């Protein structure tokens, strides 16, 4: 956003994430400015989701630091990061199956509200925002994939985050549902949210992202505007070429 003073919301400082002998992310540094949408792209196994997990607190990095909103959150647990203002969705959606859509969102609202009644009222707003009002009282296990993605966004939004991490919002969703999901993400940004997205769909990236980081084998290979990054020879060779061949 050009009219906003640029302020760094998230700074990932030289993180390495190793599992035994396997290095999933190596010496990665990145920053996210308030109000922008950053896309992480790269082939499968590039370390994008691991990076998400490290930012969200699922994994403690082997080395490096993470600063969010001026705080060092490197050793916060996921629930602590949520309270600091980091929310996320999951690549493979994780609905609370036996709870209704509304109750699912209430779990997020309870981060902000003390009473069940207040949380329910609050949750209704977010259920409506993602367009699931007509399914509010359905058990989450009865939702389609696209609806589950929306539910995950509503749940995450209900925690009132400053930063939202979206892991493949359009993955596994039928083509007809994609424009609606893109519109929803745009709406979230209009409400002042900062987003980091992992995405394979190039059209979605072009339409949403201000900036893109290309990762391969755990390392940052390129960074810039989406158009710029996608024209780099190494990106074409390592990622897009592969996409063209297979897709």
């Amino acid at each position, binding site marked *: 956003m050009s009219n906003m003073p640029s302020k760094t919301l998230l700074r990932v400082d030289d993180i390495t994430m190793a599992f035994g002998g396997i290095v999933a992310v190596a010496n990665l540094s990145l920053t996210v400015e308030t109000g922008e949408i950053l896309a992480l792209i790269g082939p499968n196994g590039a370390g994008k989701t691991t990076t998400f997990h490290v930012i969200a607190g699922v994994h403690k990095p082997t080395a490096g630091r993470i600063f969010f909103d001026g705080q060092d959150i490197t050793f916060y647990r996921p629930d602590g990061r949520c309270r600091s203002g980091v*929310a996320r969705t999951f690549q493979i959606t994780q*609905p609370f199956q036996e709870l209704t859509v509304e109750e699912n969102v209430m779990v997020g609202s309870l*981060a902000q509200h003390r009473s*069940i009644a207040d949380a329910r009222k609050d949750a209704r707003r977010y259920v409506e925002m993602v367009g699931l009002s007509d399914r509010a009282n359905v058990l989450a296990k009865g939702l389609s994939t696209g609806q589950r993605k929306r539910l995950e966004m509503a*749940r*995450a939004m209900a*925690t009132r985050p400053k930063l939202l991490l979206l892991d493949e919002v359009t993955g596994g969703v039928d083509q007809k549902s994609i424009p609606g999901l893109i519109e929803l993400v745009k709406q979230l940004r209009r409400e002042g949210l900062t987003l980091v997205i992992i995405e394979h769909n190039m059209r979605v990236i072009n339409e949403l992202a201000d900036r893109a980081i290309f990762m391969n084998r755990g390392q940052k290979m390129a960074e810039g505007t989406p158009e710029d990054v996608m024209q780099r020879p190494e990106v074409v060779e390592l990622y897009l070429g592969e996409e063209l061949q297979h897709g």
Partner: protein
Amino acid sequence: MFEPLRPWQWLLVAITLAALAALPLLSSNSYVLHVLILSMIFGIFASAWNLVTGFAGLKTFGHHAFFGIGAYSSALVALHSGLSPWLTIWIAALIATVAGLFIGLPILRIRSMPHVAIVTLGFAEIVRITISNLQSITRGELGLWGIPPFESFTLPVLGEMKFTPADKAGYYYLILVLLVFSTGLITLLMRSKSGLALVAMRDAEDAAESLGVNLTRHKLLVFGVSAFLVGLAGAFFGHYIGILTPSAAVGPDLMILVIAMALVGGLGTLSGPLVGALVLTCVVELLRDLNDLRLLIYGAIIITVVMFLPKGLATLGPLVRRRITYLRAPTTSPAKHL
């Protein structure tokens, strides 16, 4: 579960309570009361186990440890210190809580449920073997006897409450009060924001944590509350039966029985474990005359219920109601084929 109770639900609770309270006035048959007292002891046990396993999704198979710890603690404290059982049952419940938190701590770190099951089962075996071998204190398998009964007292309207083997009304009312206390506590917990967090944790632990649910706190909370209630039930059991042996109070078959009760009644429901405890305790008593055939029929009943009502007897009501509305609804289907 998180909606406010509807009037008919309040009415159902009130009628059930009134019927249970009136029962000893209608029949003073001490055998009937004995079966109901056992049902209620197991009702508390099964509800508390269901809280951890059915609602919070932590698959523990070692809750009989808390039952035994509660039973032996209360009995031993009452025997040696001369304190009244009215007081020692609460002390015992607190000791069981401490044990619950103690075993809850390592479980927090284990995300694989089969391992949780084995660790808790192992813990209970350690407790059983310890009690069995500490013969100088517990008398081991010879049995700890001479456990003091509850002291009688006089109530204004109902008269004297006696706690003797012949007159079981006192025990009946006491365990009924404990059952109401236990069910009320579990219901309040499950309807609070913690209840929602517990179910969320059961259905998707990572997602719950990412939404700000403190897993450590909730797991410890649920283990503590559950161990407290099971310990309380165990403590009552000791003073009621009057003699304790490790195999009767901490045996793995006790745990299996309670699991069967929760499954038959309905795992993850509030009323299920209570219904299951009542039904299975009664079935065991009714089949007592059949000797060896007893276990065969008992097993067949459990299998039948689990096969045809996998979510338990507690879901029978809603199922029947749906069926009735279905039959009443005007059928639009073409005439039946012959």
